[in-house]
């Protein structure tokens, strides 16, 4: 197809505002799929994605549409991951587009997630077509939605198309707007060919399937191509598009999106954002490439130590389709052998853990997550630390910087006070408060990322009884008074519970942990001290009193065998216990505390 008749676009929407329904409508209206099969979610493939209403893998769908002007257009809908954890992937997908449909629920209005994604699209200079969806709802408030588009997103409200994806209202108009308002791909006057890799997935038969947007020339099977950042040269085996199932094509031309395969077995060699070009006559690299960097780390351990190998296989398999996930072996005195895993963000972390449990049936426990700190040593060297265990000795530390995010929180006006309280409890600074409509306010704030790792989102949801929403974007690093909190049992540190915390939070956390540990560590024949310590300073202490006896009961002939078996069982149980500071601690105790963390 000539570039003038190609349109590449994506859809930006908050969860449940109707992205899936609208996509299905578009596929149906353009005849790409004959009937809408309710069970077969067309774009969101994984169960987990479906449940959580998010897309992790972006699949482009190619539709042919004959416009009112009588001409046929190739419309490529590039579905983007719906969460900021995947902000980089989102940005690469968006950079494969010239435009985006922005869906706003006529009854709900603009939500936090919409704000963050619109900001990303604007950074990519995409043409945005606002759509006010669900106008069929009785409590739809179109003027409010228009007003919010202007006030919050600076998008002219009058440009909005009124639609009901459910009722099929406005679909035609949307398709026409895609053709009319979204620019055609630029004709690139290059002597060579060039394409952007905006995603990839692993197929057992074909190897890595690379999703590409051609930015110059064309791609055909048999061509030798080079990926500039990974440095790898390969021969294209197959090219094609999705409808939404993959189908092969003779070639992908300038401006088109689709996939290529090249018998690549190692997904890590295919980097999102990389440039594909002619090895003999290479083009420039496309702008915006980044190596994917995990933002959050956590240890994942098998609950049953014998499952270590199985866990390794499971994580490796996950990684085939999720090259953003990193892992390496680590060991803990308390939990045995496991893996230090790196994630793009919190949601990514949760998804990986949940997939390990569900799809691979692994019984796992995760340690307290950590962000990456920049530790400046005396002498100027800067070290990145994602595991408190590797924090250099304090005497060598000049300062510690922690990552900050810019967070958008939208909540009903009546919860404003509580939300502000939560933000300040989380060491956040509110930068801006905007009234969205009669009911809602949006707070923009800067918050240390480590504060939102655990329960920030849950607490917003519970304060607002589900009406609040939250999103964030990375906002650099700031110097911070971070300390390493160690938990000690009879003066020996329990590595699984060490964490880097802000000084103002250390005491509280130390106390809470000490109290929980007191509950789960069994009494022994001597007194046990559980302490929280910063450096040498004890900031929390609990004592488990000594057991004064274990037997004053009788035991005669008939009891001997039974009693021996009981002792045998205890002895076997001890083998599975970790001895820390001569205190025997069952692994379950650690797990119990980590779970409630």
């Amino acid at each position, binding site marked *: 197809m000539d570039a003038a008749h190609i349109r590449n676009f994506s859809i930006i929407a908050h969860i449940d505002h109707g992205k899936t329904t609208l996509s299905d409508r578009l596929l149906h209206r353009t005849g790409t799929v004959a009937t809408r099969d309710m069970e077969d979610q067309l774009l969101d493939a994984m169960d987990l994605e479906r449940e959580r209403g998010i897309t992790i893998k972006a699949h482009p769908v190619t539709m042919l549409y004959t416009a009112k002007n009588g001409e046929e257009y190739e419309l490529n809908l590039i579905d983007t991951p719906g969460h900021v954890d995947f902000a980089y992937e989102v940005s690469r997908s968006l950079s494969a587009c010239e435009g985006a449909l922005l869906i706003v629920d006529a009854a709900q209005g603009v939500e936090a997630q919409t704000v963050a994604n619109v900001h990303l699209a604007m950074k990519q200079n995409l043409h945005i077509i606002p759509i006010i969806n669900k106008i069929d709802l009785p409590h739809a408030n179109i003027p409010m939605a228009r007003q919010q588009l202007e006030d919050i997103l600076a998008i002219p409200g009058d440009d909005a198309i009124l639609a009901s994806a459910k009722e099929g209202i406005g679909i035609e108009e949307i398709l026409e707007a895609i053709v009319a308002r979204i620019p055609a791909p630029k004709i690139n006057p290059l002597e060579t060919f060039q394409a952007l890799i905006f995603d990839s997935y692993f197929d057992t038969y074909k190897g890595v399937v690379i999703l590409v947007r051609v930015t110059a020339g064309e791609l055909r099977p048999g061509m030798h191509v080079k990926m500039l950042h990974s440095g790898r040269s390969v021969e294209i085996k197959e090219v094609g598009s999705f409808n939404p199932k993959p189908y092969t094509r003779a070639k992908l031309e300038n401006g088109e999106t689709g996939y290529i395969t090249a018998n690549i077995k190692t997904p890590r060699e295919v980097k999102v954002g990389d440039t594909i070009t002619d090895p003999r006559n290479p083009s420039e690299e496309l702008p915006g490439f980044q190596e994917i960097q995990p933002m959050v780390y956590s240890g994942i351990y098998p609950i049953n130590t014998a499952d270590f190998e199985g866990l390794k296989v499971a994580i490796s398999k996950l990684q085939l389709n999720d090259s953003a996930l990193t892992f390496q072996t680590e060991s803990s005195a308390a939990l045995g052998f496991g893996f230090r895993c790196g994630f793009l963000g919190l949601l990514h972390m949760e998804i990986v853990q949940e997939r390990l449990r569900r799809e691979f049936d692994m019984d796992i426990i995760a340690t307290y997550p950590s962000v990456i700190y920049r530790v400046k040593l005396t002498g100027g060297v800067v070290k990145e630390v994602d595991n408190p265990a590797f924090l250099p000795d304090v005497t060598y530390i000049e300062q510690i910087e922690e990552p900050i995010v810019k967070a958008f929180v939208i909540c009903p006006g009546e919860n404003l006070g509580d939300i502000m309280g939560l933000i300040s409890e989380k060491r956040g600074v509110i930068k801006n408060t905007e009234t969205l409509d009669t009911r809602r306010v949006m707070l923009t704030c800067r918050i240390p990322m480590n504060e939102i790792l655990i329960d920030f989102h849950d607490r917003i949801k519970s304060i607002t009884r589900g009406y609040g929403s939250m999103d964030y974007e990375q906002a650099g690093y700031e110097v911070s008074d971070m300390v390493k909190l160690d938990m000690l049992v009879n003066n020996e540190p329990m590595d699984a519970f060490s964490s880097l915390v802000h000084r103002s939070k250390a005491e509280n956390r130390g106390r809470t942990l000490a109290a929980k540990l007191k509950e789960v560590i069994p009494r022994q024949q001597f007194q046990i001290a559980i302490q929280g310590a910063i450096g040498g300073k004890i900031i929390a202490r609990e004592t488990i009193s000594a057991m*004064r006896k274990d037997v004053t*009961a009788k*035991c005669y002939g008939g009891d001997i065998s039974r009693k021996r078996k009981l002792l045998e069982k205890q002895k076997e149980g001890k083998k599975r216990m970790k001895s820390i500071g001569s205190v025997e601690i069952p692994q379950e105790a650690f797990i119990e505390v980590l779970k409630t963390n």
Partner: protein
Amino acid sequence: MRGGGHTRVRIELNPQERALKLSTVPEPVRSLYVHVPFCAHKCEYCAFYSAPPSGGVIERYVGALVKELELIAAECRPSTVFFGGGTPSLLTLKQWETVLSAMARLGLSGAPEFSVECNPATVSADKARLLRDHGVNRISMGVQSLDEGLLERLGRVHTRDMVFRSFDVLRAAGFSNVNVDLMFAIPGQTPEIWDQTLTEALALGSEHLSCYEVIYEEDTPLYQQLQAGAFAVDEALACSMYDHLRERAAAAGFQQYEVANWARNSATAGPVVELPGVSLAGIPSHACRHNVGYWRGLDSFGVGPSASEYVRGLRSRNWANTDLWITQLERGRRAKEFAEALSPRARAGEMAAFGLRMNAGWPWEEFRTRTGLDLRDAEWREDLVGLVRRGWVEETETHVRLTPQGLRFADAVGEILIRVDEAPPEAVRAPARTLRLEAMP
């Protein structure tokens, strides 16, 4: 300490036995336990195998018991016999006569220590005299408490008065070796009640005292009440009751010889029953020899439903099901539910663990001759050094024993000293419900 002057009973081998001894046939077993699985009413805390008797079950039991005694008689020449339960005193005079005369016929009577457990509610003068006449010379009375409220709480069928009356009956019948069983840390028992019970129990002037903390066994009503939060376990209270007991018992002239057992040590009273290969040094004269045998790992036959035995390396247990047990014996077979043989190392570990429950501990040499392994060897060295360091064990030239502090942690010590067989070499477990029986040697 044992002074001189008391009568020692030697178990003379009869000519037939002597002949057996000269050939390769092993020594006869010197200990016999008989389980009587009937109680008038089930106590709240009880996990023993016993049930109220119905129909003619006791009659059939007695018949089967005689059969089981016949099956083991050739290998058994008991120095100690113990009738436990259940409530052995529930058998009628006639039933006792049947059992005791069968024992006489089978060469199982005449044991120098012959104990029968009695419930204070079921001791009559006739029965006491009959038992005494048939060679029973030791009675163990299940008193548990002398507080009416607690007796009721525990579901005991007797009153405090019955205890005093039964005691007199036993003395009148000529029993000069009587044990009193008491329990402490009973839910609702205050230190004052415990002290009162001790005062009255000690005033009885029994020769032996068994005192133990209430045990919460699964599947008992008391356990369920505990689980349901009806009361809480107060460890500190249990400890102080134990301490109080030790003081009071000592002051009353009792010598503690095991975690839960006290006995008088007198130069004048009763015969000293010797146990083959067991040194009785440091063990009071009125200690229950039968139980000493268990703790020192002697072979012992066990007959009756649910009874355990340890005979020539094989530990086994009868079915805890009276009907099943009777049916099997009526077919001429013992009714074994399970049997296991431990490796020498595991067996030695078990003997170390249980032997150290006794204050006298283990003489190094006796342990070595009996088990073929030495507690002074590398196998246990590190464990024992650690235990000595903790202050729980003391080692002398001749003995290894628990310290007073160690006695409180006998279970922890046992856990350290036992040795677990990876896969028990000859563990045999009859599949549930099949009635196949192990052919006993």
